[in-house]
């Protein structure tokens, strides 16, 4: 395929993905808005007012970047895992497999779809947060870079999960038993400086901690971790997950007999 044809194929997958999650917006865009709205009310306003300051900011200000990041990464993941597995289940993935689309374009298309939903939800949650607090973004470029890279990483992870999934149960196991605990323990609701040394050290093995803190640094200018290291780690995981996802597509695991 020429570069132009390849670009069209990529855009086609991306548009199809965007069409899918906007068509079912009640399942994809509305729930995170409601959930995060409740978080803002309960943790930010009701409980947060009793917690006091954290890292020099009100609890509401502290928790907002974490909640935005949490919604971005879970939605990027959910979009790719459910869309790719659903295409596998309905066998409509064959439409792409028989076309002359290179594997990397298929991968890029799904990842871009995941990023698009992650960003959409991120923007919705950000607007929602403005009803509760003022956001003064300290490092906008860094914030955008982190949110993009995180969405890319979790989209890749979603695709890997979908390739291995053999039933709809399999696509909810990782989000329920891995992603949710790691997110809740990843510094969304608290600074790890509040933890005893053992738990602080253990928390540093949680990759989501770095993403949440790097994003929080972009917004508030504070972080529990080194930002350069956080970037390096996210990039490292993207390379690993991207390479593995490409290997899976190339080998045709679960897709070609």
């Amino acid at each position, binding site marked *: *395929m*020429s570069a*132009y*044809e*390849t670009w*069209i*194929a990529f*855009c*086609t*997958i991306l*548009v*199809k993905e965007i*069409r899918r999650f906007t*068509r079912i917006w009640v399942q994809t865009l509305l729930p995170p808005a409601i959930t995060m709205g409740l978080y803002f009310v309960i943790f930010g306003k009701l409980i947060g007012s009793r917690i006091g300051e954290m890292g020099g900011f009100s609890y509401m200000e502290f928790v907002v970047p974490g909640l935005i990041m949490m919604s971005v990464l879970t939605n990027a993941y959910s979009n790719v895992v459910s869309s790719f597995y*659903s*295409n596998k289940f*309905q*066998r*409509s993935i*064959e*439409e*792409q*497999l*028989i*076309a*002359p*689309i*290179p594997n990397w374009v298929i991968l890029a298309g799904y990842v871009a779809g995941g990023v698009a939903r992650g960003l959409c939800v991120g923007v919705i949650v950000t607007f929602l947060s403005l009803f509760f607090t003022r956001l003064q973004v300290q490092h906008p470029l860094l914030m955008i870079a982190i949110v993009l890279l995180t969405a890319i990483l979790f989209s890749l992870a979603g695709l890997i999960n979908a390739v291995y999934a053999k039933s709809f149960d399999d696509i909810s196991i990782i989000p329920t038993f891995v992603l949710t605990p790691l997110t809740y323990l990843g510094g969304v609701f608290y600074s790890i400086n509040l933890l005893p040394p053992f738990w602080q050290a253990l928390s540093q093995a949680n990759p989501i901690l770095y993403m949440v803190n790097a994003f929080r640094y972009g917004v508030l200018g504070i972080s529990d971790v080194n930002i350069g290291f956080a970037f390096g780690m996210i990039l490292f995981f993207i390379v690993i997950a991207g390479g593995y996802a490409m290997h899976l597509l190339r080998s*045709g695991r679960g897709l*070609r*007999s």
Partner: protein
Amino acid sequence: MDCAVSIRNLHKTYANGFSALKGIDLDVQQGDFFALLGPNGAGKSTTIGILCSLVRKTSGSVKIFGLDIDSHFAEARKHIGVVPQEFNFSQFEKVFDIIATQAGYYGMPAALARQRTEHYMKQLDLWDKRDVPARMLSGGMKRRLMIARALVHEPKLLILDEPTAGVDIELRRSMWEFLQEINRAGTSIILTTHYLEEAENLCRNIAIINKGSIIENTSIKALIKTLDRETFVLDLHAPVTALPALPGFQVKQTDAQVLEVEVRRGTDLNELFALLTEQGIRITSMRNKANRLEELFVTLLNRDDSTKPGAAA
């Protein structure tokens, strides 16, 4: 001129050890309407799966219009349109979007994709359903949707895996006409079907595959010529108690008023009627027991099975 499809020594062994293809060779000429027949599990779908890259071959070579599917996968795939046996589109998407999206996968600009989608939807009587989610279509419409989708990038080779399975007779006939039309326009077609009448009516050449090997590969005409006998079913005016003596014919009574008579090619049927008349047997109607190709098909499969090692055991 390169063949539309050229297969050499193609093997496929699945992960569970099942050998689906045992070194098949096959050529399909450009512009041909080619039938690939075989019983269930013979290797037809595996062959088609390899042609459209959904199945990975174990060894051998496959060329599409001279392009090797391994070294020129993108160019080779551009030439192929596939209508699979089972529905494989998103049930929730609109019919128009499914076809236009497929055009996009082949790198077609949006305006051209919309134009082609409209053209093929109208040709296949789907235009009225353009904004309907695919799940709302009838079985026949879903089949037509898959044909429109396979044609939207205007492939030089169209592969149809049992396209008329479960389709009513009227729709089947109209699909035949449509396929003949696009074949006349230059599209090479490979068809697998269980309706042997379909193969006989549509196709010029045929390959019969059984247990992973090609057991016959010739023209339909040449194959029909090899048919040396036909079985006729005779409905009798009155019941007969004993099998009538019909020298030169093999006769079987299946019911008190039904006889099956096997007639050798070139035999004068008047002889048969004369013998029956002599014995006071009146015939009210007569028909072929099976489609001619069907008889050959069964004969070839039986012959192949009986020549396989261990067949007598």
